[in-house]
């Protein structure tokens, strides 16, 4: 891609970071909203539409729309095969924020999983850094 990389706030790598924060936020909001409205007794509840009764779901939708704009911007500059694996940093941030903020316990097996994700991210980030040099 021959686009000149914008700097500062418009930097695509910075926007990727913003994207990750948005995803963590809306995942937590979605779970809270889905839990508050769950009614498995209705057969059509599979499509999840009753979740719209919760204001948390609407807040999550607003964050998701914001995130969509950010993500499209990121995709304009960074290959999908690099941006998407890196965006899975959320798989580390969600359990760790539950541990720090909600004081939930993390088993040793879970820490191993988190470590694996971090190693994988570091490995993917290396070609990303090379890509950055080319830009």
């Amino acid at each position: 891609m021959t686009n000149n990389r914008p700097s500062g706030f418009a930097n695509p790598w910075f926007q990727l970071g913003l994207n990750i924060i948005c995803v963590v936020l809306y995942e937590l909001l979605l779970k809270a909203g889905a839990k508050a409205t769950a009614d498995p007794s209705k057969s059509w509840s599979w499509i999840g539409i009753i979740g719209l009764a919760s204001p948390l779901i609407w807040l999550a939708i607003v964050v998701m729309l914001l995130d969509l704009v950010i993500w499209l911007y990121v995709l304009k500059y960074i290959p999908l095969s690099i941006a998407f694996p890196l965006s899975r940093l959320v798989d580390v941030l969600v359990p760790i924020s539950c541990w720090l903020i909600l004081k939930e316990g993390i088993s040793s097996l879970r820490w191993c999983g988190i470590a694996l994700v971090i190693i994988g991210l570091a490995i993917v980030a290396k070609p990303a850094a090379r890509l950055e040099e080319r830009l």
Partner: protein
Amino acid sequence: MTWWSLVLILVWVGTFVAGQLFFKRAMESSGVAGFQNRQTISLLSAGILLMTISFFLNLGLLQRFDLSYLYPFQGLSVIIITLMAAVILKEKLTLRLAIGTLLITAGVVLVSMS
């Protein structure tokens, strides 16, 4: 888990992956013309439609299952998207990227198993 819920999980992951591919294609085609490009708009609309289906399926599944149960399936999307980006979008798939992606997925599965 019934066969029905497995079908729903597969459709959920499938629409999510397809949506991402449409998004990337849309942004590639946007170029200088930005969102005035017809092709960009149609690709983007297809992506948004797929993502909307995926979103409501996700919500329905979350009402039935624990997030930790559904997470490994979401983890699988990392592998599928990286593969599809290489096959369909012709992005370069290095050995390094493949190993990193596999480790991330393995980590996600471990996290949700524990």
